[in-house]
C-alpha cells in the first residue's frame, strides 16, 4: 500500500496542504537569497565606481 493511499479518502487535501506550505517556504527562501545577491551586486557596482561610505573612507585613511 502506497503512502498516498494510506492517507485515506482525504489524501488530496493533506498532500495539497503540504505541497503548498513547501512551495511558499521555498519561495521565501529563494526571494531572500536573490535579494541578498542583488543588494551585494549593487553595492559592489557602486563601490567600483568610486562611491564609498564615509566609514569606509575613514578606515581607509587611518590604515
Amino acid at each position, binding site marked *: 500500500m502506497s503512502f498516498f493511499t494510506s492517507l485515506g479518502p*482525504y*489524501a488530496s*487535501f493533506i498532500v495539497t*496542504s503540504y505541497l503548498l506550505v513547501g512551495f*511558499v517556504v521555498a519561495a521565501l527562501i529563494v526571494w531572500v537569497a536573490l535579494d541578498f545577491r542583488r*543588494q551585494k551586486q549593487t*553595492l559592489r557596482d557602486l563601490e567600483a565606481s568610486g562611491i*564609498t561610505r564615509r566609514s569606509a573612507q575613514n578606515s581607509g585613511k587611518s590604515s
Partner: protein
Amino acid sequence: MSFIDLANPTRFLALTARVLPWLAATTTILLAIGLYQSAMAPDDYQQGATVKIMFIHVPNAWLSMFVWGVMSVAALGTLVWRHPLADVAAKAAAPLGAAFTFLALVTVSLWGRPMWGTYWEWDARLTSVLILFLMYLGIMALWRAVEDPSRAARAAAILTLVGAINIPIIKFSVDWWNTLHQGASVIRAGGPTMDRAFLIPLLIMAVAFSLLFLTLHLAAMRNEVLRRRVRSLQMTQASRQAA
C-alpha cells in the same frame, strides 16, 4: 559582545554571517525530523489522516501571531529609541508574517472542507486571522508607499501597535464567542489535551518553523541593512553628479 552592540548595523551584519549557516542547518534537520514524525503519526479516531494537516497548520497559525508580536516590540524600538535596526526588524518581518498567516488560512481551509464540510466559515477565529492577514498586507503597502524609510517606519510602527489589539482577540476568540474552530488544546490552563503521539510531532514542527522564521528574519534584516547602504550610496552618487 553585549546585547547593545548588536544594535550597530555593521556588527549585526558580522553576527548574521556567522550565525545564519548554523541556524539554517538546525532548521533543516528539525524540519526533516518533524516531517518524518508527522508522516509516521497515527490517524486520529475522529479526524483520520487529516490530523496531519494540523502539524503544518498550527505552527503557521502560532507564527502568524508571534511575528506581529515581534513587529510590535520593534515598533516600540522605533517610536521610543528611534533605532534604525528596529525599523529594519519590523520591515523584514512583515512579508514573513503575511506568508505564515496565508498558510495558516489556506491549511485550515483545506482541513475544514473534509472535517467541517466547508472551506470557509465567518466565525470569530477565521475572520480575525483574515483581518490579521489584511493588516500585514497594509503594513507592507505602507512601507512601499512612503519613500523616506524613517517616516515609513514611524507610520508603520503606529499602525502595528494599533493592530496588536487583534492578537488577543485571535487568541481568545474561541473562548469569547461560539466558534466552529476548536478551542485551545496545547497552550491552555491544565496542560495540553492532545495525545503524545500527536503532541510530539506538533511541537517539533512548531520549533522547526520558529527557527525557520528566525533564519529568514535575520537574512531579510541583513538584506534590508544592505538596501539602506545602497540607497545612501545612490544618494551620494546623485548629489555628486548634481554638483
